[in-house]
């Protein structure tokens, strides 16, 4: 692997700048083309009341504020969530191939979402949240089942067994979801949505629902940076160094399942983001979660905004499912990582 670059504040801020540029491009490009300057002016005016936008037509303002901006924010939250969850799962399991999709968590969450939609389950009071909540519960349940089964089969929880179990579970879960949808609804488009993901249904109210959940999870996970660093020498080692491993591990698994579950509930199953992004970050920086977690989030957000842009423009006016684009990149990088990993281990 190539030499790691030393990352500093300067690079951190420039990656944020790149992310913001991607956002502006994403908002401006589409069936209606909007000049970049207008996009920036509208957003600044609407969010922090700077400048005057009386010369920009009402339609453009509506397109930006009600359609494209929510979509970009949704893409950013989901991209950051999946990457963060992937980075955490990889760290806890000491497994470079772990993430929401390879462990079956995302497919498990889809079962929850499809059950809620197909059977029309709505929880009292929490009406708006019912899909999110069933997804999160199924996400955590899936993770628990996969890890429990692996622990029974292979107490050492080797990388290959974990991934194999995750992928088998994932296939099983996808079949269950498809079955539920096939039986209870005739809409095949919906099946595609849950298996390949889409950001097309993003709107402001959805963003407002998941933003607080996202912020709570991120805050908790970032407060466990030191523990994640110690986990790299193994669970026993971490305990002997003073980490309360059991509770830390369970809490981190819960919060990362919440991130994956809520992402799946909002946008369907977008594969490989959680695997690819942290892996790229790990190629760039050393294993220090103080760097890995924030960079994974920024890169994940940028990646999903960019792939969403590609998926909705490349065959316009139709839309490609975003999961197709992410999996296309993801599968290639997955193989590359696996190859390097095996070579390093000399297997």
């Amino acid at each position, binding site marked *: *692997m190539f030499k790691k670059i030393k990352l500093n504040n300067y690079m951190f801020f420039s990656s944020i700048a790149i992310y913001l540029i991607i956002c502006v491009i994403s908002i401006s490009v589409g069936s209606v083309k909007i000049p970049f300057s207008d996009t920036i002016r509208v957003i600044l005016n609407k969010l922090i009341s700077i400048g005057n936008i009386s010369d920009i037509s009402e339609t453009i303002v509506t397109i930006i504020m009600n359609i494209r901006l929510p979509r970009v924010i949704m893409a950013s939250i989901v991209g950051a969530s999946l990457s963060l969850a992937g980075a955490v799962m990889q760290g806890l399991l000491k497994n470079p191939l772990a993430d929401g999709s390879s462990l079956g968590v995302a497919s498990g969450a889809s079962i929850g979402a499809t059950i809620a939609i197909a059977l029309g389950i709505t929880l009292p009071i929490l009406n708006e949240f019912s899909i999110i909540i069933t997804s999160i519960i199924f996400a955590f349940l899936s993770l628990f089942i996969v890890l429990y089964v692996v622990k029974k089969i292979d107490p050492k929880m080797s990388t290959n067994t974990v991934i194999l179990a995750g992928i088998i579970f994932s296939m099983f879960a996808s079949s269950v979801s498809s079955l539920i949808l096939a039986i209870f609804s005739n809409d095949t488009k919906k099946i595609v949505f849950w298996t390949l993901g889409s950001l097309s249904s993003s709107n402001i109210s959805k963003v407002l629902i998941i933003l607080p959940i996202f912020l709570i999870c991120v805050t908790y996970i970032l407060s466990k*940076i030191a523990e994640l660093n*110690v986990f*790299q020498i193994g669970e026993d080692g971490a305990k002997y160094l003073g980490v309360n491993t059991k509770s830390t591990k369970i809490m981190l698994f819960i919060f990362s399942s919440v991130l994956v579950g809520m992402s799946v509930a909002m946008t369907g199953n977008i594969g490989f983001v959680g695997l690819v992004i942290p892996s790229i970050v790990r190629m760039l920086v050393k294993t220090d979660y*103080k760097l890995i977690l924030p960079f994974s989030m920024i890169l994940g957000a940028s990646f999903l905004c960019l792939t969403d842009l590609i998926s909705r423009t490349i065959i316009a006016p139709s839309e490609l499912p975003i999961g197709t684009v992410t999996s296309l990149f993801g599968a290639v990088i997955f193989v590359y990582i696996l190859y390097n990993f095996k070579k390093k281990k000399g297997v």
Partner: protein
Amino acid sequence: MLKVHSLSVKLNNKIILNDISFNVMSNDMFMIIGPNGSGKTTIVKAIMGDVKYIGNIELNNKNIKKISVSDISKQIGVLMQNHNLEFDNTVYDIVSLGRYTYIKDMFGKLSHIDKIMIEEAMELTDIKNLRNSSINNISGGELQRVFLAVVLAQDPDILILDEPTNHLDLKHQIDIFDILKKWSLKDNKAIIAIIHDLNLVYKYATKSLLLKDGKIISCGDVKDSLTRETIKETYDIDIFEWMKTLLGNWK
């Protein structure tokens, strides 16, 4: 410092340890020996609370079950048997993980004392020149010294080592034991080590415990507990005759 009293462990209805008692005092080099499967590692696991046991273990006159994970880690350090690191990091960063239990800062920022302890640990284990090397690019012997530095940086009172010199060549084995001997003579420090090489035990231990089928064969000062008779009882080998044969080969 550490008192183990009537320790018994049963796993799946099989008795692993049977009525084990011993004391480890300051400046002890306490070495546990015995055939494979005699229960050596289980003693370590019991001390660290990783298996259920009957009996009583006291750390500085306090029941170890009542001490929190974080407080135990300030008093006992454990050098692990197997290290497998999936990810890439520098030697310095790995050694600094030993300071986890003392770090108050949320982002793990090291204090002045932390940095001094890390430097001392790297000095003692002679890995200062490797500080910026990736742990994936160093040799097995160096990696073992890095992990020893982690537990030394942890600054425990008692250091527990489970076969610390496994897979190391003779020169590196002696290096590690010289480091440990030097460390154990500091104020209020002690070492508990599981060792296979009887010669190393004889040379470095102050006390030894011979274990067979979960029972103590002998325990006490190394000169009294590690004898031709006790070794015969533990391993069914006459050590003197065996060594004589070996020595003959080097004539």
